[in-house]
């Protein structure tokens, strides 16, 4: 069968699954007074449509920032505005100022879901298809299998189409950036990444690898010659893109500063809810938030993040190849997730995207991490009433990714890049590491399945009401930490495959 038909079938299946999930409930459905992310997005449409641009980020009599005030960069606001225009033509009630607060109806839900799908169809899905077809190795069939698994990653689908957010937009832009960089179009890549950054500030998780990759590339070309030219071109692209995105806010410096303050809410604390990162897990043992002041929390988390990111970024700067770039993206986003300030459980999607890029190279590890990342958001899904889609999509993803990418067959020590461990553990007797990894995978998957069942089926003891969410988040944390260490080691070991290097030039 031709590639086009296989790819189009993958895409169609991706759409069907997305839409199937979107038939379910969303965050905060029928839960006044605050509702959830769905209402936040609707409220932003209302605000951007009805208020002048200067008031969007300010607390005024017409704009109550305490009720889902806009706290994403301008591109999100523009996107809301475009959606609001469409909403207005369909039904003006949906974006009526003040009166539409908490508006819910089946037709409106359909409209909101459709906006997510349209954004995905325009940005995320084409990027995934092109990436898998042009930047992965192997036969056509293998590429199609990668498209299939990439598109069906459950975490993103459940958050965007179940919980309700537009992560597909920012992640899609970032993916376009990766794609362009992989094809050697550096200026276009930085343009796409700037768009991502201006859509969602959390894209900062990916910023350092982009920066160091391009910097390293310029160094390699020679800072006095073509490298400088490249650097200037990229810098001007970035500046122009940023200036265009922020243009309406630049007339008054106060406006721009207010936007920045809204985007980086320092006052919200080290972490919220149960996040599977270092601080929240540490919190089980030490109550950091009560010991340290907010300022020192910021400094500590900043220092830790920097320390964690540094090795992979330095390595990337020294060896700016596409393979290193992909690994650095993983390591940097995981470092940010594990150590930075104010992390949401949904931010794991930012790490999941670069991990997906490695689906073809390290299938078992990638699938393992992706499964853990979906699992880490379980409490959120349960709150939103997404149990059935969570169970179905996770099981299906686990089964099909392993089956199609033959993950369990490709796990010799060489294929898992475990050689370094032997050198690190030279004192120990020679172990069959691949075998151990495989068993660890089985045990961890059954642990995640078991915890999912227990969380759903059992009532926690009264004196430990948060027992299951904490168990879920600390299990996930262990997985993320393990993945972080593993990918760092992979980055520092020899790039063993000729295949991945071939792509760099």
């Amino acid at each position: 069968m031709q590639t086009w038909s296989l790819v189009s079938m993958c895409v169609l299946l991706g759409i069907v699954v997305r839409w199937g999930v979107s038939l379910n409930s969303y965050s905060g459905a029928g839960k006044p007074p605050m509702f959830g992310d769905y209402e936040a997005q609707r409220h932003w449409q209302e605000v951007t449509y009805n208020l002048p641009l200067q008031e969007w980020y300010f607390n005024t009599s017409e704009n109550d920032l305490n009720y889902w005030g806009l706290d994403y960069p301008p591109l999100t606001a523009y996107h809301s505005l475009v959606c609001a225009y469409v909403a207005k033509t369909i039904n003006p009630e949906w974006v009526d100022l003040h009166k539409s607060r908490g508006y819910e109806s089946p037709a409106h839900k359909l409209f909101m879901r459709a906006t997510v799908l349209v954004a995905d169809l325009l940005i995320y899905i084409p990027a995934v298809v092109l990436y898998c077809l042009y930047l992965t190795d192997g036969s056509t069939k293998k590429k199609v299998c990668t498209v299939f698994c990439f598109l069906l990653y459950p975490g993103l689908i459940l958050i965007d189409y179940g919980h309700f957010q537009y992560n597909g937009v920012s992640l899609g832009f970032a993916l376009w950036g990766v794609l362009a960089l992989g094809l050697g179009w550096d200026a276009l890549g930085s343009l796409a990444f700037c768009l991502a950054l201006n859509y969602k500030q959390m894209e900062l998780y990916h910023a350092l690898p982009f920066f160091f990759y391009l910097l390293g590339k310029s160094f390699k070309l020679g800072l006095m010659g073509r490298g400088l030219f490249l650097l200037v071109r990229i810098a001007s692209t970035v500046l122009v893109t940023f200036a265009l995105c922020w243009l309406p806010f630049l007339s008054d410096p106060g406006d721009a500063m207010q936007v920045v303050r809204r985007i980086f809410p320092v006052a919200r604390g080290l972490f919220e809810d149960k996040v599977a990162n270092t601080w929240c897990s540490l919190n089980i043992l030490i109550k950091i938030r009560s010991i340290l002041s907010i300022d020192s929390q910021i400094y500590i988390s900043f220092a830790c993040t920097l320390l964690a990111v540094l090795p992979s970024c330095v390595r990337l700067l020294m060896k700016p190849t596409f393979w290193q770039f992909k690994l650095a993206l993983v390591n940097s986003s995981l470092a940010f997730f594990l150590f930075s300030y104010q992390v949401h459980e949904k931010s794991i999607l930012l790490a999941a995207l670069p991990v997906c890029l490695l689906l073809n190279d390290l299938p078992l590890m990638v699938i393992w991490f992706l499964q853990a990342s979906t699992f880490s958001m379980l409490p959120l899904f349960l709150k939103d009433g997404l149990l059935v889609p969570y169970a179905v999509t996770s099981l299906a993803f686990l089964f099909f990714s392993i089956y199609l990418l033959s993950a369990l067959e490709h796990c010799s020590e060489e294929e898992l890049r475990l050689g370094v461990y032997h050198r690190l553990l030279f004192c120990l007797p020679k172990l069959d590491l691949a075998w151990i990894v495989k068993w660890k995978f089985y045990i961890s998957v059954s642990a995640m399945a078991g915890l999912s069942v227990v969380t759903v089926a059992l009532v926690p003891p009264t004196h430990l009401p948060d027992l299951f969410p904490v168990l879920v988040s600390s299990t996930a944390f262990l997985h993320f930490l393990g993945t972080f260490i593993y990918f760092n080691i992979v980055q520092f070991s020899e790039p063993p495959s000729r295949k991945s290097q071939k792509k760099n030039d």
Partner: protein
Amino acid sequence: MAAVDSWSWFPALALGVSFLKCLFITAYHSTDFEVHRNWLAITHSLPVSRWYHENSSEWTLDYPPLFAWFELGLSHAARHFDPDMLLVENLNYSSPPTVLFQRLSVIFTDLMLIYAVRECCRCVQEQKGCRDVLNRPSFVLAALLLGNFGLLIVDHIHFQYNGFLFGFLLLSVAKHMQHKHLQGALLFSLLLNLKHIYLYVAPAYGVYLLRSYCFTHDNTDGSVSWRSFSPLRLMALGGIVASVCALSFGPFIAMGQLPQVLSRLFPFKRGLCHAYWAPNIWALYNTLDKILATLGVRVRLLQEAELPRASMTGGLVQEFQHSVLPSITPSITLACTLLSILPAVTSIWLRPRGARGFLRCLLLCALGSFVFGWHVHEKAILMAILPLSILAVENREDAGIFLVLTTTGHYSLFPLLFTPAELPIKVCLMLLFTIYSFTALRTLHSGQVSLLHPLERVYLLGLVAVAFACEVAFPLSPWQQMLPFLPLLVTSVYCSLGVCYCFLRLHATLLRPDQKTKQP
């Protein structure tokens, strides 16, 4: 070793389709959902003697008794989900556990279909030297049957148990292909007692079993050898059918309720066509009548006041009279149906061509009754599409017919899901299935030459135009208010052209000389 390994794709495919089905749990469901919930309640909480008398819901039990027993079995599992759904007076009850249970019951009973498909796949001839799994006839057949668009939307969104029932039909066909005729007959009589709509294909079974099983061998010229008749085999068959019927209807005969049961099973108070006209000959007939009436009024041959007041496009009107053409009665449709299946049935009597010939006869019976039957549902087209899949992977010409019939037949199911939320699903699934069937069958019959005649291709492209006009353009146009049922009319008329064309093409294949590929 190779045989074991080469089937590993089958569970994966089956599992994948089942996962997909699970995603539609919260989707829209039609009144059939309430029908089946009500039957669960009736069979669970009432004594057997009341089953076919109970009428507190408008959705009375109108399937044969074996299906009622099946519902009784299901209701015992349903108890553990939500006991309230088993109360007869709880009309239109659909709590989340009820929905979950009912949806899961369809998904789990589809195991029957999965098993049957597996058996059918074993019977198709594999091409030699084909190493790619995707291009193997058995894989294509499994994908076409398990991933069938019609079954997915009718069972898992609209809500019915067709997958389970088609499992019996396909398994019985597979058993005939494996020369296990008694098992095949047993499965079919079970099926008949589960849903009597399969009576339509009973002539094919009757004639085939009589001719190819009860007569043990043929004369040298292929005609029937009367002396080879084996009364023992006939008695075995009769015994099987009679005992299954006794098991199913026995208790009701004992209670003297047979007339009541039969009156429920065969309600003749319904009209010629369903609210939405199934794409058959009567849709064309009705349209012709309407056109003639309008023309007649235009040229003053008819008085508008004299015409029977019947809104043809009115959707809700079940019984109406034709204005110009003679009205059609049930006996006319019965006669037409019998006439239409006659060639197929005679053909397998005169020239038995093994299980493939029987299968062709079976689907001609199904299609004949679809085209000429009384009060046909559009869903009945599946009865022709599914068996045709088996022939399509083995024969090039059948593949061409299959593509036309499935595409039109499936498209005619579109009005079944009218809710806007399900629009993307039906469109994408339809595209998915259509793209797959076109590319897979073309690769399978390894040709650069298209499987379709240019005219057929034009017709199918026209279908895209009709779909666009009905689903997108029309709702936005001002005619939406004046003629709300126009899209349904256009859909059924356009699709009925394709279905009738396939019906004729399939009859033409009966005249085809025997080919080597036909012999099992």
